[in-house]
């Protein structure tokens, strides 16, 4: 059975929903469970058994094996893609797991689900002592700050959540972080929350950063905010065209200026023309 699965993957054959569910349910091969969770998320599966299975995969002990953690991360990501409201408590619980990658996946998914009840626990992690300082080999920070900041901004904008000065001050602490992607994430959240163009300008400046990863992150942050004044800079930024097209789509669809379905006005025509040139 397992060998058959391997053959199918290596030859790139598509699997179906039933098969993906079987793979998620079996306990022998964790890599198959990871793949199944990814597949079900990508396909936006609506099958009633999916979410219970994912929640089960997410419930792991702090001492779980690497393999179990990998499955849990994959399950957490899938729950976000499926906008699984019933996963709220489990994902919040995952925010305190010792594994950095699982906390990051949980934070991102909480952002995608967009329930304002997640704001407090996300903020608590962000404000832990040492949250923004490198740990271990220096690869990660104490907490997945970029994901936490993005999730907070996303939930605030989804719910038009009223924030006070203290709340925004807590985020502003990260605006000068020495990792540009964290600073950009903080500016993104603040831009989503208060719409002040000074935050957008900070992100736009990063479009010219010498590192490709930073330019990409800044581009995606502007896209998430639907910040249309940056369209021309996005179109000429030194990143792949496919990413620029994705970002310009974000500007058209996520603009805070005109909520509701996008209509064909003068600015929209300009944005479409920018996209056409990138094909």
């Amino acid at each position: 059975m397992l060998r058959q699965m391997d053959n199918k993957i290596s030859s790139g054959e598509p699997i179906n929903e039933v098969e993906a569910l079987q793979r998620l349910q079996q306990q022998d091969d964790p890599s198959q469970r990871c793949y199944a969770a990814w597949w079900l998320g990508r396909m936006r599966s609506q099958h009633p058994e999916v979410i219970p299975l994912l929640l089960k995969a997410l419930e792991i002990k702090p001492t779980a094996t690497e393999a179990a953690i990998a499955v849990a991360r994959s399950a957490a990501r899938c729950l976000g893609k499926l906008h699984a409201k019933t996963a709220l408590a489990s994902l919040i619980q995952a925010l305190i797991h010792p594994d950095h990658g699982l906390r990051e996946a949980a934070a991102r998914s909480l952002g995608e689900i967009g329930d304002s009840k997640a704001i407090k626990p996300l903020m608590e992690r962000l404000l832990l002592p040492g949250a923004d300082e490198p740990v271990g080999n220096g690869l990660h920070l104490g907490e997945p700050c970029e994901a936490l900041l993005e999730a907070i901004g996303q939930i605030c904008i989804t719910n038009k959540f009223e924030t006070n000065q203290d709340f925004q001050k807590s985020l502003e602490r990260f605006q000068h972080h020495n990792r540009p992607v964290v600073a950009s994430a903080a500016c993104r959240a603040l831009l989503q929350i208060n719409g002040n163009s000074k935050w957008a300008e900070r992100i736009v400046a990063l479009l010219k950063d010498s590192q490709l990863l930073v330019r990409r992150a800044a581009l995606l942050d502007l896209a998430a905010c639907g910040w249309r004044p940056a369209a021309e800079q996005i179109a000429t930024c030194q990143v792949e065209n496919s990413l620029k097209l994705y970002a310009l789509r974000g500007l058209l669809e996520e603009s805070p200026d005109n909520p509701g379905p996008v209509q064909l006005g003068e600015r929209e025509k300009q944005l479409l023309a920018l996209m056409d040139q990138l094909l």
Partner: protein
Amino acid sequence: MNQQLNRYLLAVEQACSAETLVAATLDLVKISPHLPLNSIEQQAAINCLITLLATNNPGAAGIAVGGLIACKTAAVQPILNNLDEHNYGARAWAVRALAQIGDPRGLAVLQRAIEQDIGPSVRCAAAMGLGRIKLAELSPEEKLETMEICLAGLKLGCADGEWIVRYAAVVGLENFGITSSSSFAQASFLLLQARSQEGIEEVPVVRLRAAQALIAFN
């Protein structure tokens, strides 16, 4: 042979870092379109640009594609002669160049790309290119056959799983509908109409672009 060209060709050959290769490619791209059409010089420049597509340097390859596009039809036959079955990256760049140039000789490559290329960005370039094939110099029979292939490819592009390919197909159809004869224009109109509908197309920006294209039709 042109001294300046010789220097540039040599600079590409001898470039020892990614940066110097990009700089040398930029120089070559600047003069290539201005060399005498179909001269030995221009062919040498074009061949050099084509070899750059196969180097593992996206910066240089992207610039080289721009140079090939600027050389227009003069670049088409050399690109077709050098298509590398085994180098995916180089093939993807070649599709982009052919899509932009719009020469009917590139049709088979674009058709194959929209039908079976695994890279969304390559299918995207092919979809856009299928709407830009220049029909003017073809015989009536060739024209008909070309339009049939273009329409079939654009129809495939409209049904692609990736939104960006569908977007490119909409842009392609807008162009194709304007330049092709009436029955093909009518078919393009119907495909665009479908793409503009929420029940059929889930991505707002694709619907918006289709709506814009429909306005251009009327």
